[in-house]
């Protein structure tokens, strides 16, 4: 399948993960000229693990030797993790920032923070409130143009945010619920038509937010040097891109407003984001 500018080929020792992926990616296009950028394979950790307590080892173009196998019931999650890994370790065309991003009025909001900061949930909510979802995992910054390219993978909803989004999107846009993962329960939300139809349309960044969930509502200015440091930490390929990474990141930091926001619940987070967008973007 193709997600924005990146084509993937997925192979598996079992049918079930492929069936799960075909459900999640049923509306995605094929790679350009049917040539994928990355290959992912879901393999049995040992040959007998295809049958006895089946467990999935991630293989493909790029792998982490220490990665632990996952149970077959989490095969779709293993594939998603493997696709992230290919991007994190192999992507050289775009500056990759671990961030969610959404677009409105032709400009992009980047939400970056550690796992649990709520960036996926905020992006998913914004995607159902008139914004176009560009992605919930990686923001792809083009070093030549400075624009953010969409990479609208299915959104990885975790725990409480699953129910929040179930109230907003129809059941056919959800994958199977995956219980007991290292991050709790996970259910994937297929991006809406606007996100999928717009996956080839990049836009310039206008605002960077560093959200933090579970704290009293607050907004803080973030100095450009701190934004620069935090984004180098959030980038998986800043060093690998060398001078192109430096140029892309300094342009992003010096031309884009940034704030850190705290929010106690998703409703107030959504309002905070929309207010800041109206004020700063």
């Amino acid at each position: 399948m193709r997600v924005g500018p990146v084509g993937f080929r997925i192979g598996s020792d079992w049918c079930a993960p492929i069936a799960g992926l075909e459900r999640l990616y049923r509306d995605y296009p094929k790679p350009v000229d049917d040539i994928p950028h990355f290959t992912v394979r879901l393999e049995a950790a040992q040959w007998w693990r295809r049958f006895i307590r089946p467990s999935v080892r991630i293989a493909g173009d790029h792998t982490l030797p220490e990665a632990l196998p996952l149970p077959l019931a989490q095969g779709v999650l293993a594939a998603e993790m493997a696709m992230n890994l290919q991007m994190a370790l192999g992507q050289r065309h775009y500056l990759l920032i671990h961030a969610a991003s959404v677009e409105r009025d032709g400009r992009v909001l980047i939400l970056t923070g550690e796992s649990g900061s709520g960036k996926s949930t905020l992006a998913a909510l914004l995607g159902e409130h008139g914004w176009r979802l560009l992605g919930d995992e990686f923001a792809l910054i083009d070093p030549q143009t400075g624009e953010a390219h969409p990479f609208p993978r299915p959104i990885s909803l975790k725990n409480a945010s699953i129910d929040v989004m179930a109230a907003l999107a129809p059941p056919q846009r959800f994958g199977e619920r995956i219980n007991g993962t290292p991050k709790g329960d996970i259910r994937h939300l297929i991006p809406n038509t606007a996100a999928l139809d717009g996956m080839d349309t990049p836009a310039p960044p206008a605002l960077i937010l560093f959200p933090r969930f579970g704290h009293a509502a607050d907004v803080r200015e973030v100095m450009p040097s701190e934004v620069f440091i935090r984004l180098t930490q959030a980038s998986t390929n800043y060093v690998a891109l060398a001078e192109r990474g430096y140029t892309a990141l300094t342009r992003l930091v010096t031309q884009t407003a940034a704030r850190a926001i705290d929010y106690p619940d998703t409703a107030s987070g959504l309002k905070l984001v929309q207010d800041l967008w109206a004020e700063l973007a």
Partner: protein
Amino acid sequence: MRLVTQLDTLSAIYHRRAGVTHLIVEPVPEILAALTKAPATIAQLIAILVADYGLEQNAESVAALQARLDELEAIGLVWRL
């Protein structure tokens, strides 16, 4: 050889030969700018920094400048001729 971008009170510097990014604070950008124009001794460099950037000329500033130059030499951004 290098790119410098002023961010706020800090500047980012990309060292092409090393492929490394540094964040630097004054007077490092001023030192590098002065040495980019022409090589200089410590005394000449102090004279430039006093004239162009208002550096106070005393034993403390000479020691501080020497310390910064040693650090910059260690990471390959300045070198002795």
